[in-house]
């Protein structure tokens, strides 16, 4: 760390700063910024490694180490505040091919998943994936649930997956988790969750033209009358 002398003195006077190391260069940045905002503060303008900036899209995966620690930590740049002594690298892309499949020709069975992703049977339960997950999901348990044939359990466990790819980068079995989990969720939604009968009924009613005349009437109604109708409509309890 002592070899890093390239400190950029560019912090607003009076604010407390932390020193971060980005791709080998040292910078002092105001505390409280996210990693993403700290890098913009330094002078970076992102093309890769940025997306929703709210923790939903998984574009801004980063790996970092803290001083005095051997552990390689993983996080989302838009959701993690900078800490003093942080060594940071961006991992904006996790290389993997998305296999094509036809969901209509499947059932909610592990065999269909294993056929496309045979590598999941190589899972050694090392739990590296779970430790890497910035969403703190039970990633390894989900893979093991698939192997036990419990598709629904797997889907529930990893529903909050944002496809950042960090688990796959750490996985010694080289599993393409985000695509495995996408298939698991679609299988669950399509073949395991019961269908909404009230939805089917409403679709029939619309096809029969049940609401056409009433909507037509509203469309032609003078605005004052429409306003009255709107104000007087009953409102269901939240």
């Amino acid at each position, binding site marked *: 760390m002592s070899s890093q002398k390239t400190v950029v003195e*560019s*912090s607003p006077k009076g604010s407390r700063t932390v020193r971060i190391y980005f791709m080998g260069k040292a910078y002092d*940045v105001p*505390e*409280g*910024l*996210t990693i993403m*905002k700290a890098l*913009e*503060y*330094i*002078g*970076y*303008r992102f*093309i890769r490694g940025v*997306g*929703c*900036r*709210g*923790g*939903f*899209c998984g*574009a801004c995966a980063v790996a970092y180490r803290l001083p005095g620690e051997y552990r390689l930590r993983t996080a989302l740049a838009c*959701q993690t*505040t900078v800490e003093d002594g942080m060594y940071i690298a961006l991992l904006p892309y996790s290389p993997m091919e998305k296999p*094509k499949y*036809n*969901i209509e020709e499947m059932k909610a069975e592990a065999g269909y998943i294993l056929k496309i992703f045979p590598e999941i049977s190589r899972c050694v339960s090392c739990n590296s994936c779970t430790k890497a997950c910035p*969403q703190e999901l039970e990633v390894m348990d989900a893979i093991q649930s698939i192997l036990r044939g419990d598709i629904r359990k797997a*889907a529930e466990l990893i*529903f*909050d997956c*944002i496809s950042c790819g960090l688990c796959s980068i750490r996985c010694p079995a080289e599993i393409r988790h985000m695509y495995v989990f*996408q298939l698991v*969720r*679609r*299988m*669950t*939604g*399509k*073949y395991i*969750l*019961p269908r*909404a009968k*009230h*939805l*089917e009924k409403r*679709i029939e009613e619309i096809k029969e033209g049940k*609401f056409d005349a009433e*909507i037509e009437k*509203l*469309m032609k109604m003078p*605005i004052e009358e*429409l*306003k009255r*109708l709107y*104000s007087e409509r009953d*409102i*269901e309890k*939240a």
Partner: protein
Amino acid sequence: MVEGYPPEMRKAIKIVEETREERLKKRYRRLSLEEREQLVKKWHPDYRPDTKRALRIGPSKGTIVYNEVADILESWPIVDPEEIDLSKIDYDVNILIIGGGGAAAAAALWSLYEGVDPDSIIVATKLRFGDANTVKAQGGIQAADRPEDSPVRHYLDTIGGGHFANKPELVRALVMDAPFIIKWLEDLGMMFDKTGEGEMIEYSGGGASRRRLHCARDYTGLEIMRVIKDEALNKGVHVLEFSPAIELLTDPDTGAVSGAVLWNLETQEYIVVRSKVTILATGGFGRLHLAGFPTTNHYGATADGLVLAYRVGAALRDMDTAQFHPTGVAYPEAILGELITEKCRSLGAQLVNANGELFIYELEPRDVVASAIIRECAEGRGILTPTGVCGVWLDLPMIDMIRGPGTLKRALPAMYRQFIRHGIDITVDPVLTYPTLHYQNGGIAINVHAQVLNPMDEPIPGLLAAGEITGGVHGRNRLMGNSLLDILVFGRRAGLTAAKLVKEKSNKPKISFKHLKKYTEELRAYNIPRDRKAPVILPDYRGNPDYRGKNPFLKILRISI
């Protein structure tokens, strides 16, 4: 590292805690239409005289728009057309879809269902396929499918919420297509929140008279996007990522839109695409930071498509209104402006001022709630953060008290995560909130077939549009849960129309920049500064005045090699 609330904010939270028991029994009354109007006119940014101006050039000359929108519409193209060689076409396709969100994916899929060859469709996206506001939509998607509800009610709620300025035939399409869209998603394998019998678990949204919001936890938009993206990729749709459109192309003989010039953000090459039909699904303007507000929007929401459409003659409507989401994050600073979903209020969380008082019914339409929060802060009943941001409390711990322990973590996992990362446990403490720029209510005019219209209400040949870029569906204010619906209803309609047009058109169109001639003459006539260029493509936060972590010491020098 900044953890939890500082002592002075802790003191303010005490008042929230002390009044909670009493407030649990109370609700603020609903306002009458007149009261709503008075509140909005006094406090909403749409009515501030300094935020807007009349457009001087283009098809909707004279229209009042936000200053930041006027700036990009009164802008020069980012490249000199003379420098682009149109004799070499890189991609010659039937359908070019510009945009990477839900509307784009829906358009691609529905044109495929109608028999268009996947090899003749290109989706060009600015960032990755799926990087869009779609994935950030937490609350849900509206569809009137319960027996207590009807599309007629959905129509009335939408028109009333939009201040009766919506285009009626677009609203009819929205509400009547809605149940079909939900069914489509269910068939594709979307994991909706359901009861054990398969009944959809539906919540109330602001301004809706029935519980009508279909959810997938608080990842509804993400779940929609990843399912339809997966399906589009399974079907073999070609996606050009990191290749935003920088200009449309037109046929010099017919004036029809006939493709676009794309820009490879990484190699800086341009790409010429000729297409029989072009669909704009580029989203809205959040990252322009209208009136200096922070935004909930994703990084690419810079209204690029609006600029491109305006240059080929598209009419604008309702562009003088913007939706400020009532509850953006006001603390901690690290996530300032991010969304606190309306679902929190659907689940029972109350808005509370510094005195521990209720001041608005939480499920009024968004512009009304936002105006009330701005009023509380302006009149000294807000709470100040250490960095000088003002806000009011959203009393989240009430949710578990009303609906049972564990509800909040189960129904709002994304929210819980976002705050616990900064040391704030929302099952125990309230969060501080202030309005944030959320949605482009208006946009380019379209008809029910998603065809883009000129000021005479005639379709511009070859050009379709869907989603937030368009205006008319939501009038002057959009209801919660109607935007996820909008992108799929009109994305689908754009796909269907495109497929029909492709079958009708046997000849390949010509490509040119002819439409820019008149536009640039106007720019010249009004002495628009030469360095003002659009589309914006990406925001620049290196010293941006809205950006609160800004670095005043940066000295950026642009060198082109």
